[in-house]
């Protein structure tokens, strides 16, 4: 994607890379035999995935009664996990689409992995609304399809139905966006491959040749998809927040939810990107592409969004007090000091207090701090959803129905199992596709023409296609 850029920019890729170096660095992980670390990680993830499959089968076979939810707290870990995963799935699109609009070119180093993470997170999220249904075998009822039952339509007033549309749209657009970005890179891998692998990549790269026409169409499509994705980043979590905001339950019924959920989603999404990037860049030796500057930029987003959610938490408390509405007041009093007080304080500490450390430049640029805090933030965001869902339901209008919730092994297995699902997919992804967008990274290689000192220092091409043809020649030699 060539755009008008300032002639002098910060160095986004370190290590004096040439176009060829980039291709080598990024394609090699898909070509080598897996490392021992990868195999161990994969085996572990697959084991958790197995646990997930087992726990889901158990749930479907036996019933939702295997969970700890009850007549008062009908949603608990299921929807908590759903919202959590959906939130995580926000970073990819944000990086791809919104940062694109804001011309944040550093995003090219992380957008591929972040988008992949988005897709996998949405896959994980999607498991919960499906499998929390009492009769999952009738899940197709939620689609408005022509039928002979009247016809009987879905209820377009229901936020759960909006969820179905929001999430499926988000998933398909994200998938398309991600895959579109992948096509030139898959072609690069194809060009380096032989035999069956070559055939496979040939199929998946749609016969990409790198012709000008291809690039032109590719860029147009990318732009269109970026345009579609941009509102989706805001809409998906807004609609997820409607699951709560449109209810009558005090603590759910608040107009602040849409922006608060979106900020929280970006917050948790970036934290998850950090967690993954820190590991990926180390394991795949991509420190030159995902530099400490990237990490710092994302930490800045984290401290911003973390502060936004902090403000939201305090606003909620203020409004509850200011409203003079006893149910609302009680709901928030209960959140802070009630039976689940520990989850509220966990949330406050992890989401509001801990990211403030990123005001310090040293911490912002520290790999270890970043990794640690990104995990803390994700724990905090999980608590946030738990606080909103379980704590609120546990103490609603009629004290006679108040109840307490504890998860069972099935719910714990499902949650940890979705992590297995997520990492299994992510690890497979690192093996089959370049984790950094080769074509896009090449477009930002040059900081300024005179600074480029690589072996192929000619200013005669446009990014990847040129690089590729050069590589091809080199390979032929």
């Amino acid at each position, binding site marked *: 994607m060539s755009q008008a850029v300032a002639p002098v920019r910060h160095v986004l890729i370190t290590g004096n890379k040439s176009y060829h170096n980039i291709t080598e660095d990024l394609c090699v992980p898909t070509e080598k035999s897996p490392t021992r670390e990868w195999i161990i990680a994969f085996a572990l993830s697959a084991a958790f995935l197995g646990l997930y499959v087992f726990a889901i089968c158990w749930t479907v*076979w*036996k*019933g*939702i*009664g*295997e969970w*700890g*939810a*009850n*007549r*008062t707290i*009908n*949603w608990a870990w299921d929807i908590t996990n759903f919202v959590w995963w959906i939130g995580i799935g926000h970073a990819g699109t944000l990086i791809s689409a919104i940062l694109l609009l804001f011309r944040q070119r550093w995003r090219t180093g992380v957008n591929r992995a972040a988008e992949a993470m988005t897709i996998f997170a949405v896959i994980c999220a999607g498991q919960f*609304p499906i499998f*929390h*249904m*009492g*009769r*999952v075998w*009738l*899940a197709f*009822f*939620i689609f408005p399809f022509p039928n002979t039952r009247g016809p*009987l*339509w*879905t*209820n377009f*007033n*229901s*936020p*759960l*139905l909006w969820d*179905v549309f929001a999430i499926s749209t988000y998933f398909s657009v994200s998938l398309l966006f991600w895959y579109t970005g992948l096509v030139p890179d898959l072609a690069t891998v194809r060009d380096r491959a032989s035999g069956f692998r070559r055939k496979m990549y040939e199929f998946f790269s749609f016969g990409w040749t790198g012709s000008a026409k291809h690039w032109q169409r590719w860029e147009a499509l990318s732009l269109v998809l970026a345009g579609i994705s941009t509102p989706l980043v805001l809409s998906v979590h807004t609609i997820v927040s409607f*699951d709560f905001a*449109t*209810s*009558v*339950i005090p603590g759910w019924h608040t107009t602040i939810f849409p922006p608060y959920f979106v900020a929280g989603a970006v917050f948790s999404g970036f934290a998850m990107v950090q967690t993954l990037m820190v590991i990926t860049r180390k394991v795949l030796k991509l420190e030159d592409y995902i530099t400490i500057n990237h990490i710092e930029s994302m930490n800045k987003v984290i401290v911003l969004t973390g502060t936004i959610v902090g403000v939201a938490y305090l606003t909620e408390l203020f409004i509850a007090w200011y409203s003079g509405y*006893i*149910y609302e*007041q*009680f709901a928030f*009093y*209960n959140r802070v*000091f009630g039976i689940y007080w520990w989850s509220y304080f966990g949330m406050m500490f992890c989401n509001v207090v801990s990211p403030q450390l990123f005001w310090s430049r040293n911490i912002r640029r520290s790999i270890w701090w970043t990794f640690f805090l990104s995990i803390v933030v994700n724990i905090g965001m999980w608590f946030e959803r738990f606080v909103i869902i379980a704590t609120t*339901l546990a103490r*609603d*209008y*009629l*004290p*006679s*129905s*108040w*109840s*307490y919730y504890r998860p069972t092994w099935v719910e714990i297995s499902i949650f940890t199992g979705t992590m297995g699902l997520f990492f299994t997919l992510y690890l497979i992804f690192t093996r089959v596709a370049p984790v950094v967008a080769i074509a896009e990274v090449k477009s930002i290689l040059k900081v300024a023409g005179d600074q480029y000192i690589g072996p192929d220092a000619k200013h005669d091409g446009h990014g990847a296609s040129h690089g590729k043809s050069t590589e091809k020649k080199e390979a032929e030699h």
Partner: protein
Amino acid sequence: MHHDNGIWVSTEDLMREESFLQSAEKEFAIENIDQTDGKWETNRRDFLKLLGFGLGAATVAASCQIPVKKAIPYVTKPDEIVPGVANYFASSFVHGGDYCAVLVKTREGRPIKIEGNTLSGVTGGGTSARAQASVLSLYDTRRIQFAGKVSDGSVEKMEWAALDREIKSKLAAGGPVRIIANTIMSPTAKLALGEFVAKYPNTQVVSYDPVSSAALVEANKQSFGAAVVPSFKFDAADVIVSFGADFLGTWISPVEYARAYAKNRKITGKGGKMSRHYQVESHMSLTGSNADNRVMIKPSEMGAAIVALYNELAGTSGGPKVGDKAAAAIKKIAADLRNARGKSLVVSGSNNVAEQVIVNKINDILGNINTTVDFTRPSYQRQGDERALSGLIAEMNAGRVQVALVWGANPAWELPQSADFKAAFAKVPVRVSFNTVLDETTLLCNYSAPAHHQLESWGDVEPKAGYLSLIQPTIAPLFETRQAELSLLEWADSANLNRQDEQPYYQYLKSHWASDLFQGQSKYSTPAAFWDMSLHDGVYEKPAADLPSAAAFAGTVDVNAVTKPSGAELEISFYETVNIGGGQYAHNPWLQEMPDPVNRTVWGNYLNIPVESNGKDKINGWKGLEDGDQVEVEVNGQKLTCTVVRNFGQPQGTVSIALGGGREAGGCGVTYGTNVNPALKVENGFIQYYSSDVKVSDKTGVDKHFACVQHHHTLGVHSSADANHNIDEAEYFQGSLTKRSIIFQTNLKDLQELEEKMVEFHEEAEHLNSQTLYPSTDEWFKTGLKWGMYVDLNSCIGCGACQVACVSENNTPIVGKKEVARHHEMTWLRIDRYFYGDIENPKVVYQPMMCQHCDNAPCENVCPVSATTHSMEGINQMAYNRCIGTRYCANNCPYKVRRFNWLDYTTADVWPANEERVFHVEGDEKPFYADNLTRMVLNPDVTVRSRGVIEKCSFCVQRIQEGKLTAKREGRAIMDNDVRTACQTACPTGAIVFGNLNNPESEVNKKTKEAAELAYKVLEEINVRPAVSYSAKVTNTNEELFS
């Protein structure tokens, strides 16, 4: 094939080629495999066809839930049975001394529901939870199915004739025979018994009641010369004082009393007259929880409290002294009583003769005898006398009893002397049981002659003098059982029994009515007409001429013969629960899963401990114990392991536990709770339901499945010292609870103030609700039918009859203790219980809570698949088939009345995946609902819900439909009586009224209007627009009582 008509189909035809003719010959032939040279070739089209069909067939087969159909048509249809139309038969519920006149609803020949019989002069159409649940025990899989010898815990089948021969030969020896029974209220059964005694003159009947009132009967004999329970007229009493008698819940005739009690407590917006009820007791009973004033004493102080009142009224002194606080209160009670001479009533649940005599004297002083204490209509509901037991045990031990017949009683378990009884019983050579299940006593017998269930029997009952009612069978006997009365007549070689008749006991009963009761009346000229009318009505009232005459007090009061206060630091009381009684109802899952009204626990009995407070911000259990902790209790040397439940209103220094837990054999009550019977003591032959010799250990463990349906108990309790300071008033806990629009309550004298407050509340709610952006839906429901309900919280006593009726009517699943412990109970109607007021002696309000059928229902708009929708008649409907179980509706219900089928509770799934989790009766192979016998109780008008769907109160939509059809058939508008919900008909006090809100003449409209100033909707201000109104709770508290 000649084409005469000149039409040809092809050139081959036209040319009449050989090959064509051949093929035309066999136009529809299918080629055999051998004709194709042994090859079966499939072409592409066939393949696709088969593939398509195969896929289609597999899809259809896999996706359709194939119902199991076992419908067999009548070969000859009985006249009175129309499939799909219910028949009602008047009958009676009788269990020992418990009585209720009922109508039995049958569908296609099987009884499925009990309704009250409004013609009854005793119960007046009210029912109890026990009566409601009795239909389930008909289909108890544990019933003994044939007569035989009992050995090794089972019955070896014998033919009845063989059994008769064997038993008659044993009886013929002429040895002493003892019949052990509970109260027998049937005149005809007594006649049969008389014939048996005449034949075997060495026979004696030993009768006792599982929970005894023997001292009351004995005291009445001493005071009035009549060994009966008088009629207590709670409706005629302006001041009621009860010394521990739980007359609304369990004491003698609670349905009758509750009905009368509520009559004098109907408060409208204009105020009104209301009796004042004082309860002196040592644990929170159902009656105490409804009382206007409660005086808490230790159990051993009961005698002293009665003496205190007596001294106050008689102007005497002497006898033991009750505590100062109680004494001061009793002084004020006495003043109130004095002002209500002849219009007051003092009752006592004590099982001490001297105490009961003093109570009689008190009533005598107050001029209540023959006004509120009526001996002209004595009750026969408690005739047992446990004093006879010690004699029986001695006789049996001495080998002086040859034959023992056990008739309905369960002496091997339900008595303090059960251990002695068992040892002695073993020495009786011939032991025969008429009991219907292999209970603790039947297991010890050597013959079982199982009686019918009442719904298979003929019989009559005289619960009160002059009030008779009939029992008629509503189904042919399910098993090879025989009525106990018939067995007795058979063994007595009765000459009055027509053995050739299909139903000999029916003839016997009928001829008794013809010869006895028919003679005493003049309304009917023939015995047949008299019988038909009596059977039709189910009840018959004797003309007054036959009745006993009024009584006069002629006893001697001995204030020193009462129980002396023990002075012990800790005392325990034992009480009967509304649901499982003294344990005789413990094998009924509906009753086991009905929460105890006061402590809200299910499946077992729990030790109630008092709560303590620092008066500021803490409410703790006594000794720091928490709900569900287990403790060791040592009572009279007997060690019991109990699970603790904290209970407001339990006096300090006392604990209490219900009877009836820990059954040892015979059904689902086994393994739940603790058997406390061995810990009871016997004084002067009377069982005492308290003890001063009790020790409670510290926590020894935790009941993992502590099953209590209500987690939070109070709506604002304050310390005794400061009525304005809510405990735990961190403003938003108790503080905000008192402000919630769930319950409105006041004292009668402050009624005006409350009404003003409510006007303000309605205005505020209206203001908030008018802020909505959406157009009002009220107009939609202004025409046609609009169903609504009114619940009078002043009449509701929390007895739970409605809840069991709802379970029965709507096939609500029973989930068992473990699932209730996980808050998975399925009841559509629950009775919320809240404490308020003084933390040490709180008041209680019960609130039946069912789907409120909101016109702006929050559940409806959140369902993604429109499985729950609003009908044009204002009913919030559930389409189970459409529900996919997202449970958002349940989350969004402000009243939390929606119930999710978490597991396969009804065993409606095709695969038996959940069987170990869903409710099993201990020892049964199949889950409770999987048995076809149990399933016979299901109401065919109501879908049995499968796992994964939400269900909830439907306003008995099947009854609405039935009512509409009736009206339509009769070509008229629908009226109130066409539709009455199950909870409404079950209620003994008429607290629930249902009907069409658009009909100004409907009862529900009238009642709501009468009480308009008190009526409110729960959570009115959240604009969900419920169809159920409640009335504010008004008590008639004597505020001076403790000041």
